[in-house]
């Protein structure tokens, strides 16, 4: 193999009494794409924080281009040619593409910004990996995928020899992923080494050469991607053999609970569907196809025209408050912004859904509330020190379970799940699938939007495919194939 660019040897990091990393080592060669995988909380982020100078290791060494180095802070990391493309992108929306890429390093002439030079530099940079934006465009209206490309350009502008991608595909559509894979291969040809963090097996097989697995802050496996099966990689991540992460379905659909006829607004053009008690109806399609908008309209967030019938009764919710009273709950696709109060405790987050139901004359019944919340916390196996732990301290999977618990606490007849496993690790995913099956068995009508096709097919009973606001197909999940759904999507 080619020369070694980066070595992290026996790195450990303790936060107080918590061992986030124990004796972790990692080797990266020139032009290699190394996938770094592991469940949430396995230590991937901490390891990358050590690498990019965000935190200092408690022990261990970093050897860059054969020299031991101490990376003092993120700008030191940049200067040494180590960049990171963050999962949660930080762009200055009011600035242009060029300004974002060269923020803090704008070329100047006579003390003023030399915009001609800036745009020229940006164009040159974009030529390198063959992507083209207007350097003068404001970043505000860019999609997540486009923002990511800007981050990549920024990394290139520092002449980075190592670029870390932190779960770059979590919010991308399949097409956008393909573009990203292409760019990563390009980088590889240019001799850049890439560390690619991901939860998605598809990513690992598409771009990865080697895979390093972390579990509980320790190295738990390493191998050549092409020589490992998906099951083997998952086994290294979770420490057990996962036969089938989707589990078996047990639910039996009953009578129609929710009937939607000719639902229309500016994003959705006339949608019709029924959902039965105990049924899981899946919505497939690309991001922006109008799936989320259907849920938001019925849930009372967006305006719509058309008819919605719940248990044979016409309803038209104008607010989530009304929808929840009717027995409809929504688990939003963006739990941090729309689902959770991050600085409040788990129990408080869950009991938000039952404040009015347990109160008497406007007085909150803390005892009943906490008992109910605790019950859901146990039932959904939310892992935390106790119920008073703040939601922000939880892993993605546990945060998602808190949102689901809050929705379930109000005992909904219809549950909307929008990308329920986004940013959730493999172990927690399997648990969420089990929860969905349990709910369906109890007769809850479930509508799930998912961009992960294997999940959509395995968990749903019936699938409706959307494209640009139109309902373009419907099929029983048993007859659905990934290729068949994709063909309808695009």
């Amino acid at each position, binding site marked *: 193999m080619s020369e070694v660019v980066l070595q992290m040897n026996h790195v450990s990091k303790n*936060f*107080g*009494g918590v061992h986030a990393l124990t004796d972790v080592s990692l080797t990266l060669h020139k032009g290699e794409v190394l996938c770094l995988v592991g469940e949430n909380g396995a230590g991937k982020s901490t390891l990358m924080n050590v690498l990019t100078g965000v935190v200092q290791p408690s022990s261990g060494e970093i050897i860059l281009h054969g020299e031991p180095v101490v990376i003092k802070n993120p700008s030191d990391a940049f200067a040494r040619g180590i960049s990171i493309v963050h999962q949660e992108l930080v762009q200055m929306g009011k600035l242009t593409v060029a300004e974002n890429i060269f923020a803090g390093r704008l070329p100047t002439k006579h003390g003023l910004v030399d915009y001609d030079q800036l745009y020229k530099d940006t164009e040159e940079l974009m030529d390198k990996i063959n992507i083209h934006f207007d350097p003068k465009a404001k970043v505000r209206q860019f999609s997540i995928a486009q923002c990511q490309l800007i981050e990549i350009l920024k990394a290139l502008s520092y002449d980075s020899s190592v670029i870390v991608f932190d779960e770059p595909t979590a919010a991308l559509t399949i097409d956008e992923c393909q573009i990203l894979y292409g760019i990563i291969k390009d980088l590889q040809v240019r001799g850049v080494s890439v560390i690619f963090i991901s939860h998605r097996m598809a990513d690992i097989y598409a771009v990865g050469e080697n895979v390093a697995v972390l579990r509980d802050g320790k190295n738990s496996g390493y191998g050549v991607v092409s020589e490992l099966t998906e099951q083997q990689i998952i086994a290294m991540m979770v420490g057990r053999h996962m036969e089938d992460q989707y589990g078996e379905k047990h639910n039996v659909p009953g009578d129609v609970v929710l009937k939607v006829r000719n639902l229309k607004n500016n994003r959705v053009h006339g949608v019709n569907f029924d959902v039965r008690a105990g049924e899981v109806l899946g919505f497939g399609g690309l991001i922006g196809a109008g799936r989320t908008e259907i849920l938001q309209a019925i*849930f009372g*967030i967006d305006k719509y025209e058309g008819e919605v019938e719940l248990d044979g009764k016409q309803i038209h919710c104008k*607010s*989530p*408050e009304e*929808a*929840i*009273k009717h027995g409809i709950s*929504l688990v*939003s696709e963006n739990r941090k*912004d*729309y*689902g*959770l*109060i*991050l*600085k*409040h405790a788990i129990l*408080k987050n869950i009991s*938000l*859904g039952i*404040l*009015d139901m347990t*109160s008497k004359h*406007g*007085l*909150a019944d*803390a005892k009943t509330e906490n008992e109910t919340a605790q019950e859901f916390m146990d039932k959904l196996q939310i892992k935390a020190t106790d119920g008073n732990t703040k939601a922000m301290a939880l892993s993605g999977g546990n945060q998602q379970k808190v949102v689901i618990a*809050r929705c379930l606490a*109000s005992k909904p007849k219809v549950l909307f799940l929008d990308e329920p496993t986004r940013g959730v690790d493999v172990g927690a995913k399997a648990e969420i699938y089990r929860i969905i099956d349990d709910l369906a068995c109890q007769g809850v009508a479930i509508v799930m939007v998912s961009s992960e096709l294997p999940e959509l097919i395995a968990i749903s009973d019936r699938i409706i495919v959307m494209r640009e606001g139109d309902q373009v197909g419907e099929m029983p999940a048993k007859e659905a194939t990934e290729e068949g759904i994709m063909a309808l999507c695009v």
Partner: protein
Amino acid sequence: MRTVKTKNSSLMKKILQSQYANLTGIIVLIITFATIVTIVNPLFLSKANILNVGRQMVVFGIIACALSFPQIAGNTDMGIESVGALCGAITCELVSASNPGIIQAQIHPVLAIIIGVVVGALCGLLNGVLIAYTTIPAFIVTLGTQTALRGMTYIVTNNMPIAQLDERFLWLSEAKLFGINIQIYFLACFFLVTAFILNKTTFGRKVFAVGGNAQAAYQSGINVKRITLYCYIICGIIASLAGILLSARTNSAQPTAMNGYSTVAISACAMGGVPLEGGEGSVIGMVFGSLMMAMLTNGMNMMKLSTNYQYIFRGVMLILSVFYAQWINKKTASLARE
């Protein structure tokens, strides 16, 4: 730091990890400040002066209670001072035997207070409607009402102090119970009622939720606009009572009454651990915050600082104290983690 850590008892750790841990900053600050003033002037800790601080704390504490509702819900209110001044003036004119203001009727003090409170509620309603149902930022709306209502106060009073108040009205500041001024009891009631509303009612819980994350609260079925509106109405009512109690204490309604008190309320809340972005906060913190603000004024008098220098000192102290409280909190938080 590390040697202290090993000696920490588990009780100490429990306190540091509890929800009250963020009060350590303000408590240490109060002790530090009291020590300095006492060294300069030992009379600071005399019984008479402590009661004096208590009386000065009354209005500060009540306006902190008023502000806590919008502030915990993630908004702010710059108009508290003008609402208090206007309502105090209206109530005083209604209980004054002869005054230069435009209201000349003299009515029973209880009725006058009720009218003053209703005006306060209407001011809160105006703020609340504009903030909840339009997209104008709360800071701008309440800055606007602060200015406009101050103007109304000048008009209502004809720019003159309103004096010659009904003896029965002055009971609000002169009555004593067990040797302690009645206003201290009022203050305690405000703190207790505020704590009750915020912690024991579903409304209060929703206030915290809205301030914690308005979008998540909305999607959890909380009517965010209605909660915001109610917060401002409550704020207006409490602010009017603060203005009325202040006028009883000063025996008159001044057109410039409570000038600058919005800043005092924000300072008291900020020092007491209600963050400007909302979602958190406790009444006990506000008690300490308003105590600190009262001690600041009183302490500077005890140290014989002239009024002009007091302004400078007060401004510097506000910035320093919040910085200091944050620093202490950070230290205790890191102790609690270890």
